Each structure stands twice: as structure tokens, then as C-alpha cells.
């Protein structure tokens, strides 16, 4: 993933993948294009790195995959499982809380002055 500190970006691809797949099933290339488009290229992936994340999510039971022939091309479509939905909610809560906390710090919230 380009354009950011890896520690801060850890978990971001997982969250975005789960969110995108909540809407519809997709194959790897589609997922990367959707991330590119929806983040207006703020989050730029070396595109191949999405697959280990997908495979891990599938191994954990958050996703399921199915190989299909579409337009003469064989593609692996990924879709969200109920376990994946729960994981998405958990991650969303975590990230929402974290983003709010960072915003507070950036705006100079009260807890900053107590340091």
C-alpha cells in the first residue's frame, strides 16, 4: 500500500474489502478498481497485495469464493459471509472511534492540553 505509514494503514485493506463486498460479490481486479475509485486514489494499492488479504479472510470464514466463467474468462468471485458481516461491524466501530479520536487531537481537543 502506498502513500502512508504502514502502521496506520494496517487493517485498512481488510476493512475496505469487507465494506465493498457487503454490497455485492466481486473479483480481485474489481475490488482494487473500486478501492481506487471510491478513495479517489488516496489509498493506492500495489494491486496484487489484495489477494493474500482475501485469502486470509476466506480462511477465517469471513468470505467465501467461487470460480466462475464470465465472458470467456475464469474469475474468482468473493462474497461476504455472516461472520464477515460481524467482522465488518466490529472493524467499522473500531475505525470510527479511532478516526473520531484522531480528529479530536487534530482539532486540539481538551485532552491534548492535559498532557
Amino acid at each position, binding site marked *: 500500500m502506498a502513500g502512508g505509514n504502514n502502521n496506520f494503514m494496517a487493517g485498512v485493506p481488510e476493512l475496505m474489502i469487507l465494506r465493498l463486498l457487503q454490497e455485492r460479490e466481486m473479483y480481485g*481486479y474489481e475490488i482494487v478498481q473500486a478501492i481506487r475509485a471510491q478513495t479517489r486514489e488516496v489509498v493506492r494499492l500495489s*494491486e*496484487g497485495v489484495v*489477494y*493474500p488479504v482475501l*485469502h*486470509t479472510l476466506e480462511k477465517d470464514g469471513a468470505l467465501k469464493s467461487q470460480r466462475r466463467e464470465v465472458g470467456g474468462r475464469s474469475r474468482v468471485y468473493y462474497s461476504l459471509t455472516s461472520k464477515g458481516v460481524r467482522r465488518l461491524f466490529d472493524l467499522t466501530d473500531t475505525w470510527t472511534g479511532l478516526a473520531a479520536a484522531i480528529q479530536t487531537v487534530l482539532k486540539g481537543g481538551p485532552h491534548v492540553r492535559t498532557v
Partner: protein
Amino acid sequence: MSAPFEPLRERLLRAGIAPRHVRRYLRELTEHLADLTAEQRAAGYDEDNAAIRARALLGDDAELAAAMEEQPGFRSFVARFPWAVFLLAPPFVVTLGFLLWVTAMVLIGFAGGVIPTHHKIPLPVPAWYAATASSLMFVGNYLVTPLLGLLLAWMAQRQRMKPLWPLLAMGLILLLNMHGMFEADSKRINIGLGTMLTYHISRGEPFRPEHLVNWPTFFGQAALLCLPIAWLLWSRRKTATQA
């Protein structure tokens, strides 16, 4: 299909990623690369430039390998526990093979009426039974051992393990066979503690070559184990050349 990713394949296998995960990863990368190349061509780049740009967008080998290596659970059992596969499993398999052989001989003996179930009068061992025992011994000594060696060599090559591991395993098999060769005493029926055929592993004293049970068998097995070793070294050389 995944020729552009051969160096990545080697890198992942050497890092201990299970071959099935590597295969799947490379297949999906190949498909993704095809989509990216088509996208670049559609954007107006010629064939060569489209391919170069697509490969750059996909990520370099270091990034792609790191992404896989960072994920937990993709390393193979052989890569995580080579000592278990190459040092613990061979003695277990050899012992299990011996037990299966004994079981087979006893079952055949009962089925063929060679081993009496009720009366306790020693019976002469029929020729067919002796021939069956000899055949199974031959299979155990000259087929199972090299097949086990070949399996170990194949596992090592598949995961690009250091050749030292299968070499150690084969040395261990030979050492075991040196001190415990399959031998059947099928000339008599033991009626001392019940009705049973007597089978035993003939033992030589450790590291005393003059006590070896059967030199021809030992050298025969050693010669046969050279085949998987030769195959492993040839495969390794071929892989290095291709990379």
C-alpha cells in the same frame, strides 16, 4: 500460465508458503495482470508498454512476496516443522510398515489355515506361505524404502527445502534398516505362549558393522535410496537454471 511469476513462486516456496497457496496466489495474479494489461491497452499504450505498466501496477516481487509472508497461516507444515517430517516421521513410518507387514502375515496365516486356532500341534509351513512372506519382505525392503525416500525427496523439492533434510531422513532410514531389517522366522509355529507365528526384527549391535544382519539388503537399499537423492539434486539444479 504463471511464467512471469516464476521468481515470485521460488521466493514464496523458499519462504515456506504452502505450495497450494502459492499456486492459487499466482493464478489470481496472472488473471489480474491480464485485466491490467487490457486496461492499459485500452488507455492507448502499445503492447510492450501496456505489459510493463500493468506489471508495475500489480506490484514488484518484493511487495507481492511480503504481502503473502505477512499473513498468518499460509506456511506449510513441512516448512514449520521440518524436524517432525524428516526426522520423526521416517522411523514411525518404517515401524508402522513393519507392523502392517506382521499383521498382514498373521491375517493371511489365519485365513489360509497356517496358524491353528484351536489345537496346539505344530504345523509345517506350506510353501505358498513361505513364498508370500518372502515376497512381502522383498516389497518391504526394496520397494517401500525407496518409495519412502522418493516421497521425502518430493516433499523437500516441492517446498524448496534444503537438501540436507531429506538426506538426513534417508540416512536415518538406512540406519534403522541397518539395525532392524525385516526378517520372518516362518519355519516354525510357536506354541509356548499361545498359537502364533514368531516374527522378529533381527538386531545388530549399534554401530558394529560386523553384526549387520544382511549386507546385500543394506547395500541394495542404499543404492535404491540414491535414486531419490539423484532426482532431488537434478530437480534442484533444473529449478535454479529456470529461475
